[in-house]
C-alpha cells in the first residue's frame, strides 16, 4: 500500500507556485498591475488637469494633442480617464471586499446553523434582493448623502445578499460531508468547523463571483454618480464619463467608448485573476 505514495508536485504553500504557472493569470495580473499603477501615479501620467475646462477645444476628436479627445467642456478625456481609475478601483475593491466578508459570514452561518435562523436570515436577504440593485443603492445613498465613503457603503450593502446566497449553498452541502461530522466527533467547535473546514472548501466560489460582482459595483458606481448620488461632479469617474458621453454618442463616440473600454479591461483582468485563483486554491487542480 505504502509504495503507491510516490512523488507528486503538490505541497502546502505551493499556492503561489501553482498560481504563477497559469499563463492567463499573468495576463490578468499584468493588466491589473497596470491599472493600479495608473491609479496611484495618476498626477504624473495624466497630460492635463482633469478638471481644467477649455471652451475653445470642445468635443475635439482624438488627436496628437488630445490622445483620446476632449469632452463637451473641453476637458482632456485621457486625463479624466486616468483620474477616474482611482475612484472606480477604490469603490469596486473596497465595496466588494466589505460585501464579500459580511455576505460570506452571513451565508456560512445561516447554512451551518440552519433551521429557523436560516429561514429568517435568508428571508430578510430575499427582501433585499427583490429591490433592483440600483434602487436599493439609490435609497441608501440618498439616506447617507453623496460622498465617496457613503457610495462605498451603499454599494457594499446592495451586494451582501448575493454573496450570502453564494456562500450558503455550498455550506449546506459541505455540512453533510463526513469530514465535518468527523470534526464534530473530534470535539471541534462550530467556529473552527466553519472557518477551517467549510470556508476553505467554498471560498473559491466566492472569490470567482467577487470578480464578476466587482464589475457590477463599478456599474452601480457609474449609475449613482450620474444621478448625483455618487461622487459629486466635476470629479471624474468612469461611470459619470460614460453617462456624459451618451449625450453626445452620435457626434463624439470617444466620450463613452474609452471609459467603457477601461471598465471592460478591468473586469477582464479581475475575471482572469479570479479563475486563476480558483484553480490555485484547489489542491486537486493545482497538481496538474
Amino acid at each position, binding site marked *: *500500500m*505504502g509504495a*503507491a*505514495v510516490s512523488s*507528486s508536485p*503538490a*505541497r*502546502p504553500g505551493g499556492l503561489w507556485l501553482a498560481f504563477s504557472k497559469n499563463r492567463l493569470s499573468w495576463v490578468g495580473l499584468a493588466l491589473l498591475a497596470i491599472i493600479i499603477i495608473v491609479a496611484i501615479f495618476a498626477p504624473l501620467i495624466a497630460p492635463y488637469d482633469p478638471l481644467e475646462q477649455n471652451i475653445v477645444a470642445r468635443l475635439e476628436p482624438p488627436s496628437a494633442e488630445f490622445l483620446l479627445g476632449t469632452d463637451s467642456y473641453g476637458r482632456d478625456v485621457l486625463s479624466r480617464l486616468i483620474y477616474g481609475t482611482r475612484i472606480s478601483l477604490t469603490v469596486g475593491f473596497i465595496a466588494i471586499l466589505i460585501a464579500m466578508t459580511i455576505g460570506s459570514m452571513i451565508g456560512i452561518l445561516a447554512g451551518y446553523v440552519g433551521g429557523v435562523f436560516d429561514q429568517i436570515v435568508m428571508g430578510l436577504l430575499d427582501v433585499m434582493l427583490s429591490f433592483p440593485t440600483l434602487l436599493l443603492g439609490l435609497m441608501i445613498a440618498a439616506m447617507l448623502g453623496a460622498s465617496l465613503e457613503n457610495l462605498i457603503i451603499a454599494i457594499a450593502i446592495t451586494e451582501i445578499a448575493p454573496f450570502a446566497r453564494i456562500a450558503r449553498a455550498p455550506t449546506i452541502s459541505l455540512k453533510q*460531508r*463526513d*469530514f465535518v*461530522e*468527523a470534526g*464534530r*466527533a*473530534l*470535539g*471541534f*467547535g462550530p467556529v*473552527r468547523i466553519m472557518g*477551517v*473546514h467549510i470556508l*476553505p*472548501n467554498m471560498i473559491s466560489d466566492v472569490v470567482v463571483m467577487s470578480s464578476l460582482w466587482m464589475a457590477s459595483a463599478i456599474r452601480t458606481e457609474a449609475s449613482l454618480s450620474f444621478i448625483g448620488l455618487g461622487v459629486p461632479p466635476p470629479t471624474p469617474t468612469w461611470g459619470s464619463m460614460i453617462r456624459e458621453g451618451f449625450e453626445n454618442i452620435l457626434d463624439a463616440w470617444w466620450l463613452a467608448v474609452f471609459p467603457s473600454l477601461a471598465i471592460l479591461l478591468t473586469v477582464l483582468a479581475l475575471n482572469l485573476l479570479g479563475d486563476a485563483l480558483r484553480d490555485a*486554491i*484547489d*489542491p*486537486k487542480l493545482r*497538481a496538474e
Partner: protein
Amino acid sequence: MTAGNGALEVRNLAKHFTIGGGLFGPEKKLVRAVNDVSFTVPKGTSLGLVGESGCGKSTVARSLLRLIEPDAGSVVFDGIDVRAAKGAALRQLRRRMQIVFQDPYSSLNPRRTIQQALEEPLRVHRLGTAREIAEKIETAITEVGLPKQALDRYPHEFSGGQRQRIGIARALVLDPELIVADEPVSALDVSVQAQILRVLERLRDKRGLSFLFVSHDLGVVRHFCERVCVMYLGRIVEQGVTAEVFDRPLHPYTKLLRDSSPVPDPTARLTLTKIMGEVPSAANPPPGCTFHPRCVRAAGPCMTDIPALNEHDRGRQAACYHPETWPGLQAVAAAG
C-alpha cells in the same frame, strides 16, 4: 448501570425524524428510525450491528456520539451519561469515543494535508507540545500502515483504502477507548477490505479498543465481532454470540439475512429462504411485529403485538413469537 467499567451501555435508544410538513409540503409524518434499541459493548470487545440499508444502523452509530441527538433512551459510557454531557465534559467524552466513516472520499477535508488533519484534534484538545504531537501523528500513521511521507500529501493523492487508513489514524490520535465503525469497509474493494480489517484487528488487540461495528456484510461481522445485534426497521430483533446467531438464527429475519448472503463454498448448496415482499417504509411501519408481512412463520399475535426481545437461550435474545427451532435449542425456545 455499572459505573466506570469502560463499557458502553445503550438503553431504549430512540430517534424520530419528521418528514414533510411545512406550509406547502406534504402531510407531516413521523419516521421512527430507531426504536427502543438496547445493547452493551463491554470494554475491549466488538459488537456487530447488522441489517439492511435503512434499518437505522447508522442512525444508532451517530446517536451514540451525539452527531445526531437521540430523542429518548440513555447512552452511558464508562459510567458517564453521554446524553447529559455538556461543554468540557462532552469534549472529554469525544476524545474517548471516535468514529470511522464509510465513505473514505467524503471523510477527509480535501484542503488539508494529512499532517494538518491528524494534528488538528491534538491541537484543539491541547494534548502535548509540538514535538509530542509530531511524534504522536507519526506513530498513528505508521500504525495504520502508511509511510511518514504520506503526512505531507493531500487526500486526493490517496486511494480509497489508503484514505480509510488515514481516517482510522485520525480517529486514533486522541487515544480513544471506543471506536464506532460505520460500515468501515463496505465502500472498498474486497482485497482492500481484508487489509483494513486486519489493521482494525491489530489495533483492537494492541490498544484494547472496544468496537461498535456497523455493517451489512455478515461475513465481515462474523470475522470481526464476538457478539452481534440484528436490526430490522429500527428495532433489534435478535442478539447473541455472532457464530451462534448466524449458525442457528432464532429470528426468521436473521435466517433470511444469513441465507441471502453468499457463502464462499462451492460445495454448499444455496437453499434460498422464500423472501416475500419488500422492506416497508419506516414512515409507515406495519402493526405488530414489523417483519410479519414478509415472514413465513407469521401467525396470531404477530399481526397485532410487537414482540419483546426475550431470552431464548443462554445469552441469546430474539424478538419473535415463533422463533426458529434448532436441535439443542428446542427445549429452551419452547419454554421462552
